């Protein structure tokens, strides 16, 4: 059955008492057409066999599951840069917590908050490139927000060491429609992700080098090649 173009506000329940709505056509397109790929998650980092054990809601894939290695092996994906073929892509960060937090922002926010998006003028990019550039550190940490919640003194996207002063945390932690992030298609706070981002801001970004954005591979995964030395 096709959903009306304007969507359905209350189609089911996410959990008892919490309605789940089916997005409108425009809302579907907002998320699926604002990034590099219309199929969310069908991207190098998410498909990588180099799984992040700290990623929120992570699962252990079944043997033989389709991942980037398998796609390459079957010849279903061709023409990738040699560095990506040589080594499974991963979020490069100084600590495991930073890797997981940056990966979460990349996987859940960057399909809208990227440099090619219709809202690129906001200057908030939460994507991670496999060549090492981490846009989240450069555009969110210690950056003033254009949006200011009414009645709040918070005005910075991320304040190292201070989640309570970080607007990104405030918006992820609420489902008040005017403030919440993501702004659509979600009625429940992702508590596991919120805890991860909070821990990242408190433990990692507060360190002297935490917000510097120095990209360090934690462990070599497939070869000694370094993606940062490759032309993208």
């Amino acid at each position, binding site marked *: 059955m096709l959903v009306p173009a304007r969507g359905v506000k209350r189609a089911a329940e996410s959990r008892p008492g919490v309605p789940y709505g089916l997005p409108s056509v*425009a*809302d579907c397109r*907002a*998320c699926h057409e*604002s*990034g*590099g*790929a*219309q*199929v969310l998650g*069908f*991207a*190098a980092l*998410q*498909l990588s066999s180099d799984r992040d054990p700290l990623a929120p809601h992570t699962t252990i894939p079944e043997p033989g599951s389709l991942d*980037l290695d398998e*796609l390459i092996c079957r*010849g*279903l*994906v*061709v*023409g*990738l*840069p040699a560095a*990506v073929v040589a080594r499974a*892509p991963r979020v490069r960060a100084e600590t495991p917590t930073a890797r997981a937090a940056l990966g979460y922002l990349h996987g859940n926010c*960057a399909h*809208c908050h*990227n*440099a*090619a*998006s*219709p*809202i*690129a*003028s*906001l200057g908030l990019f939460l*994507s*991670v*490139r*496999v*060549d090492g550039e981490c846009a989240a550190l450069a555009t969110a940490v210690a950056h003033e927000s*254009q949006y*200011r*919640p*009414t*009645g709040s003194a918070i005005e910075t996207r991320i304040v190292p060491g201070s989640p309570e002063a970080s607007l990104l945390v405030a918006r992820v932690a609420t489902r*008040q*429609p*005017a*403030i*919440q992030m993501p*702004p*659509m298609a979600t009625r429940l706070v992702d508590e596991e992700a919120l805890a991860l981002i909070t821990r990242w801001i408190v433990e990692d970004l507060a360190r002297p080098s935490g917000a510097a954005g120095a990209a360090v591979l934690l462990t070599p995964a497939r070869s000694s090649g370094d993606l940062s030395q490759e032309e*993208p």
Partner: protein
Amino acid sequence: MNRHRLAAALVFAALALPLAPHAARAGEGGAGPAPSDSAADAAKIERGRYLVTFGGCNDCHTPWKMGENGPEPDMTRMLSGHPQEMSVPPAPKLSDGYWIGGVGATNTAWSGPWGVSFPRNLTPDKETGLGSWTEKEFIATLRHGRQRGIGREILPPMPWPAYGQATDEDLAAIFAYLRSIPAISNRVPDPLPPTP
């Protein structure tokens, strides 16, 4: 496109390998009026002025005051939205039935099943108005009923489903006019959620 190429294209696009530089586009730029000597731009702005006037934008986006002849828009605050310094009392509770909403004396606070909405600042102030918006974002907002096209919902009584039917040319003209008017710093409050 065969499936190999399609899959490669999808993965490659999603690699976020070099993203296109954030190129300047028409309609982008800083705050404040952008006067132009060109007759085409002047005509575009004039078309926008006509549409904004005809479309009744001042009815909700300009605060009203009590004048000698009754309520009238305060044009010293033209299109600057609900005054930030004005706190509003709780919306009146209406019994179930025909009446479902109310409006404040300034015409800039509207209550209904959606909560309380406050018409936003449409002036080119960069911090609190549309000064940082692009023409593309403005058009997308009216087309899709969300801030910048993909943000939070535009609430009633904003008739975006009607204005969203306008041509790109007309919406661009409206945006051009809104960029030409005086910038007013006024941070409109967030909408209030419905009370249980």
